[in-house]
């Protein structure tokens, strides 16, 4: 029964989405307020029905309803309840349901938080989101129905893929999808602006916090994915430039460019057409990512079942949404006014270069990811594009970006007195370079040019960000106290500073981990001691352990440093009962400055086992950096400015409502 209700509510949601994308749009053209208001109602309705649908699927999982094909394929009675719930989005069909739920959630949020915006804008925005919703809901219903029945019902489920039975993967997909789908809001604002032909920069102010929040979700989603790979795959890596990672990284890069260009467009009302293009691109790349992951056109670690029918559907949808938007863009973007004047050396130029670097980085990843496909399609010999290529090309693009990131926040709009700026920054520059040279030498007594450059870049990012705040404090009146001055700094400023510090921490993590990691792959007898990076690892024993739905061999490893006990590690090798897949569950000792990481290999003999031991310095800083970026993004979206805006624009709406409306 639950499955039928789920499917039925899914169909209702589709009907509502169709209404949402047609009626408000007509209303906006005819200036009919009751028609425009339909957008809000249908958006809430769609969200409500999708929640019901989602709960129905979850219910089928929790009650082990193996007459539902999707449940039978991805769950099992022995699966712990929290994994039964996360199994809802563990495979293609259910993850699509989560996707449309997220989309409806964003639509609902827009309908709630946009009370102050002009009705016609809200109507157009919701209509565009409704159109996106139609695409994905019909995709789900037509090609990937999670509620399909299995007859006769299975007696037992085939269990959730063991790799997905990890806390990281419980929250990674929801976060990632919230990010992907979140860009649909900025996209809808941009399309609404193009549709209405009102190409002032008001819509920029409205869409800015939305873009920020979507970016935060995407940042967290990607970080969790990488954290999961580190914890679950057992070889101590955190980023592999796999197509699926690239698919999420491309919208992130463009999203980053977008939140910066939105700032310029809001403050200086320049780059309008460019900002519109970025809004379209960020969401288009999210859709492209969906296509790449779900169509099987690329070899990836994380591809869903590839099915040409699904691939063709998403491709057609992509053609309509992206092709349509880009055509609309080409038609309307010429009408944007060009905005104010600025000099060669100015904040505007710096942000423009920031955008160029980020977009070129995105295009590089796009070319690298799709190059094998290009060659194959042209019938040329195949090749692989892997980590060596991406690091070789990506790092040189990011370095100037970090340098610029230090200068930009201190630069002024319109024009920057170069000499003054240089005078402010020269001490920090010297300090950064010194730190870059000294830190690796002091900690590891070793360095390379690349390491020094990397650390200098990280230090520079942090120093300049901190300086941006201290400078504001130093400039306060003598009468105001430091705390008062701190409290007067806008949240957006704090957001930016914290996010930029996050970049610095992230760089530290990446550079130290790649430069000073150490590892050993060896076979060890019980009681034998292995030295790695100053630590002594001692394999005591390997014993058998029974988990809820798996059987494991668990090793016990003592770690000592300079004769002192550090920690015990328990790496496991699990065999999941149903799918019979061996999984490594590394034993990790996490620390501020290093991780010790042990994964169990194969038994060589009764008391000798294969082992991989990793020493990973500063690796946690990678995710700490991402956390900082996310916090920064949230603060940016919470800036007072957006609440002030609520008041002022409410007034304008009211005046508009009270005066006779003349068709434009």
């Amino acid at each position, binding site marked *: 029964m639950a499955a039928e209700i789920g499917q039925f509510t899914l169909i209702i949601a589709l009907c509502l989405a169709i209404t949402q994308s047609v009626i408000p749009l007509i209303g906006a053209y005819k200036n009919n307020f009751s028609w425009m208001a339909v957008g809000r109602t249908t958006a809430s309705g769609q969200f409500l029905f999708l929640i019901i649908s989602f709960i129905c699927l979850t219910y089928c999982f929790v009650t082990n309803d193996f007459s539902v094909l999707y449940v039978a*394929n991805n769950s099992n009675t022995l699966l712990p309840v929290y994994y039964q719930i996360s199994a809802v989005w*563990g*495979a*293609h069909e259910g993850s699509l349901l989560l996707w449309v739920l997220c989309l409806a959630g964003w639509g609902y949020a827009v309908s709630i938080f946009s009370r102050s915006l002009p009705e016609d804008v809200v109507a157009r925005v919701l209509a565009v989101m409704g159109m996106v919703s139609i695409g994905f809901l019909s995709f789900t219903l037509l090609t990937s129905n999670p509620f399909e029945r299995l007859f006769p019902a299975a007696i037992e489920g085939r269990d959730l*893929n063991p*790799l*997905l039975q990890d806390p990281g993967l419980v929250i990674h997909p929801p976060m990632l999808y919230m990010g992907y789908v979140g860009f649909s809001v900025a996209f809808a604002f941009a399309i609404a602006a193009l549709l209405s032909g009102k190409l002032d920069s008001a819509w920029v102010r409205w869409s800015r916090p939305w873009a920020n929040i979507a970016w935060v979700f995407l940042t967290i989603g990607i970080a969790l994915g990488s954290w999961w790979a580190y914890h679950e*795959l057992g*070889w101590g*890596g955190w980023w*592999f430039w796999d197509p699926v990672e690239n698919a999420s990284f491309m919208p992130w890069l463009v999203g980053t460019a977008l939140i910066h260009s939105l700032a310029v467009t809001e403050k200086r009302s*320049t780059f309008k057409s460019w900002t519109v293009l970025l809004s379209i691109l960020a969401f288009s790349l999210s859709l492209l990512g969906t296509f790449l992951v779900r169509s099987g056109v690329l*070899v990836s*670690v*994380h*591809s*869903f*079942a590839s099915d040409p029918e699904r691939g063709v559907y998403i491709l057609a949808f992509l053609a309509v949404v992206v092709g349509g938007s880009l055509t609309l863009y080409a038609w309307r973007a010429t009408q944007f006014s*060009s905005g*104010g*004047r*600025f*000099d*060669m050396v100015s904040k*505007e*130029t710096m942000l*423009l*270069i920031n955008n*160029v670097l980020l*977009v*070129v980085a995105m*295009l*590089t990843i796009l*070319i690298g990811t799709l*190059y094998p496909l290009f*060659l194959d399609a042209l019938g040329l*010999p*195949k*090749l*692989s*594009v*892997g*980590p*060596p*290529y991406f690091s070789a*090309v990506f790092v040189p*693009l990011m370095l100037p970006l970090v340098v610029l990131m230090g200068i930009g926040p201190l630069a002024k709009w*319109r024009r920057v007195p170069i000499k003054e700026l240089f005078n402010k920054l020269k001490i920090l520059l010297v300090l950064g370079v010194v730190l870059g040279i000294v830190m690796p030498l002091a900690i590891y007594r070793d360095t390379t040019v690349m390491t020094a450059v990397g650390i200098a870049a990280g230090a520079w990012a942090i120093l300049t960000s901190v300086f941006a705040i201290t400078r504001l404090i130093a400039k306060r009146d003598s009468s105001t106290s430091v705390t008062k001055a701190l409290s007067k700094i806008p949240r957006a400023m704090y957001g930016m500073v914290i996010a930029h510090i996050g970049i610095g921490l992230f760089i530290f993590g990446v550079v130290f981990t790649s430069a000073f990691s150490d590892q050993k*792959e*060896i*076979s060890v007898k019980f009681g034998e001691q292995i030295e790695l990076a100053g630590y002594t690892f001692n394999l005591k024993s390997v014993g058998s352990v029974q988990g809820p739905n798996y059987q494991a061999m668990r090793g016990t490893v003592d770690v000592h440093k300079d004769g002192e006990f550090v920690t015990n590690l328990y790496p496991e090798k699990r065999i999941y009962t149903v*799918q*019979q*897949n*061996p999984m490594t569950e590394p034993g990790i000792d996490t620390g501020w400055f290093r991780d010790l990481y042990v994964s169990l*290999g194969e038994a*060589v003999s009764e008391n000798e086992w*294969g082992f991989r031991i990793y020493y990973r310095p500063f690796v946690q800083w990678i995710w700490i950096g991402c956390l900082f970026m996310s916090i920064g993004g949230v603060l940016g979206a919470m800036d*007072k400015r957006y609440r*002030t805006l609520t008041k002022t624009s409410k007034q304008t709406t009211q005046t508009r409502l009270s005066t006779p409306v003349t068709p434009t």
Partner: protein
Amino acid sequence: MKILLTIIICLALSVGASASFITVAPEYEERYEKLLSELRCLVCQNQTVAESPAGLADDFRIEVKEMLERGATDEEILTFMSERYGDFILYNPPVKARTYLLWVGPFVLLVGGILIVIMLVRKRATNIPRNELTEQDKQRLQSLLGDEDKK
């Protein structure tokens, strides 16, 4: 349904794989590890040979090890592999006519992007009249906006 299929297949393979450990003499270790991390395992196609538990990866390890011991250069070893398995096995795509776009593309895009910025900025810096606000304008604006900025 088949998420992470590749990894599953590969992990399944590791059950059958022998637990042999291939160790190289310390003087080759660095090159050995670097070479393995640049070779793609063709069974578990999203892993490097260094990471892959597949039996074929073990064969590649032995091959690389023995070639190193015979004094082969890195170049020779990579050529040896690509002669047999095609460029598909190299994670670091070699520079050839058909990879020019791949290698040069990003830098062409970068230079193009920077040139566009320069052209655009020069246009902006000269063509648009300076319409900076006078002190009087600013005060008017301030009174119009209320004390919004001061909040």
